[in-house]
C-alpha cells in the first residue's frame, strides 16, 4: 500500500467540481483501491457523494492511499491531482 498526506489549499475544499474530477481519476485504476481519509474516516475516492460528504475544507489534512496492482501509478497520479486542483 502506498500513501501520502496533503493539506487542502483550495478555499472551497473538496467541493463538487474537484470531487467529480477526482472520482473520475481514481476510476481509471480499476483493480486498485484509492481511498481518501479525513480524521480517520476513509472513503473510496471513486465514490463521489461519499467523498463530498467527508466535508473536507481548506486547511484540513487528508490521507490518500492506493492498494492494488497499479498502486505506484495511482498514488503518483493522485499526488499530482491534489497539488494541481486542491
Amino acid at each position: 500500500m502506498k500513501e501520502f498526506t496533503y493539506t487542502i489549499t483550495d478555499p472551497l475544499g473538496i467541493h463538487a467540481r474537484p470531487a467529480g474530477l477526482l472520482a473520475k481519476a481514481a476510476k481509471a485504476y480499476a483493480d486498485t483501491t484509492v481511498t481518501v481519509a479525513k480524521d480517520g474516516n476513509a472513503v473510496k475516492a471513486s465514490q463521489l457523494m461519499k467523498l463530498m460528504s467527508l466535508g473536507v475544507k481548506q486547511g484540513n489534512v487528508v490521507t490518500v492511499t492506493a492498494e492494488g496492482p497499479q498502486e505506484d501509478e495511482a498514488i503518483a497520479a493522485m499526488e499530482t491531482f491534489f497539488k494541481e486542483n486542491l
Partner: protein
Amino acid sequence: MTLLQGKGVSKGVTSGPICFFQRPGNDIAKVSVSDIEAEKARIREAQEKSMAQLEALADKAREETGEDTAILFETHAMFVEDDDYVDTILSTLEDEECCAEYAVKVAGEQFSAMMAAMEDEYLRARAADIKDVTRCILNNLMGIADGGIDSDVPVILAADDLAPSETLQLDKSKILGFITQGGSGNSHTAILARTMGIPAICALGDSLTKEYEGRVAYIDGAAGTVTLDPDEQALAAYEEKARKQAELRALMDEMRGKEDVTLDGREMMVYCNIGSPDDVPAVLQNDGQGIGLFRSEFLYLAASDYPSEDEQFKAYKKVAEAMGGKRVVIRTLDIGADKQVAYFNLQKEENPAMGVRAIRICLNRPEVFRTQLRALYRASAYGKVAIMFPMITSVWEVRECKKACQAVMTELDAEGIPYNRDTEIGIMVETPASVFIADALAKEVDFFSVGTNDLTQYTLACDRQASDLGRFFDPHHPAELRALKIAADAAHAAGIWIGICGELGADLSLLETFLAIGIDELSVSPSSVLPLRAKIRQTTAGTCTAELLDC
C-alpha cells in the same frame, strides 16, 4: 365544432396540434413488481439517457454560458453513475420489490437529505444538485420530455399556467401559441408570448382538458378563442384572419429600417423589453433602436444557487455586444412579489407586492448587489450599458445605490479592469411615492423609466395578479396618466429623458397622449416595435392633446 372562450392576452392567429406542458409530478407511488431484472434494465437505460443529456447540456453551456456551468452539468453526469447512489437504488429495488421510479425517488431523497444535513453551507446547497439529477433520471424513466414539450413538430402549448423558471426552459422554436387554464394579461406566459409575437389565450378554466391533447386547434389571440373541428364558416373566418395577419406582417416589414419620427419631426426612441439574451434576435429582427428594459431576473430564476459574477458578466456582455453600441438598459434584480427564488430564502409575506422585494432585497444584501453591479460595470466596457434600479420610493435609496456603484468602480480601478465610467444610471418610476418626489429623484439620475404595470397596481390599489377586478382595473385611469405627466415634467425640468417600459407603452390608443405629455422613449415587446413605428409615422405631435388626463 368545439369553441372554448378565454381571455386573449397576445394577439395573432395560428393553428396546430395541442400539446400539454409536461410537468413531472412529485407523487410517485410504490408499485410492487415481480420482474426486478426488467426494472434494473429500465434504470440502466434511464441512466444512460440522463448522462447523454447532461453531457449535451454541458457542451451547450460551454458554448453559451461558460466553463462553470459546463462543469456543473458534467458533475451531474457523474452523480448519475455514482456507486453509492446506484447501489442504494438497486438495493431498494431488491429489498422492496418495487418499480424503478420508486427506487430512484427513495435514493434521491436519501442522498439529498444526507447533503442537507451537512454542516458546511456549500455542501448543504448541493442537495439541490442531487434533486436535479434524480429528477432527470425520473423524467427519462417516465418518458417525460426535457423542456416539457414532447413533440417533433411546432405545437400550441397548453398548461394550467407556467412558472417563470418553466418558461425559461421551453424550446421556443416548437411553440406556435399558448393556451392556459389560469393566468392573466400580466402573467409570465403572456409576457413571453408578446415577446415572441405569437398568440396566447389565458383563463380558459376547466374547459381546457387533457382530452384535447394532440387535436388540431385554431386559436385567435385577439378574440380569446380556441376552436376545435371548426365548421365551414368558422374555418373561412380563421383563414381570412390568417391572410390579413400575413398581409400586415408584410406591411410591417416595410417599416424595418425606417426612423421613429412623427410627421412634424418629433423623434421617439422605440426600444424593446427583453427577459434574457435569447430575446435579442427578436429585437434585431424587429429593428428595435435599443433595449429599454433587460430584466436580469432570468439569471437568478434559472439557477439553483446565486449566479456568479462571471456568469452574469457573460450574459450582460453578450447582449451589449449584440446590440452593437445601441443603448441597453439593464434592470438590477427585481424578485420578490410574484417572482420567488428558493435559495434567497425570503420570508413568506402576507402581502409580497408591498414586501421586501427588488431594490429592498439588494440594499439589505450588499453582497448580492455588489456581485451584480460588478458584472454590469464590467459589461459596460463592451457596449452602451445603462443601469436601472427598480421599486424606488426614496431619495436615500438612490443615493445608496449610487454609493454602491461608486464602490464597485473604485474596486475595478484598483484591479485594472476596464469599464465605462460614464455608465448611465436610472430608476424605475413605479410607485406613487416616486411620482410625488420625482423632482428630487430627477436630480440624482440620468433617466426615468415608468413601469406602468406596478404603477397602475399601486396607484389604483388593484392587484395586477387578480383576474376579477374587471372595470376597476383601468390602466387608462386619469390618475395613472397624470402621474406620467408629473414624472415627465420633473424629468424635463432636470434635463433628463423619460421612457415607459410597462405594457402601456405599446398601447397605440395612448400614443397621442404620450406625445402630448412629452414621453421620450417607449420600450415595448419586440413584436410591438413595427406597429408602433407605423403609428408614430402617421401622427403629428404638435396637434396631440392630453385630454385623456381629464376626469
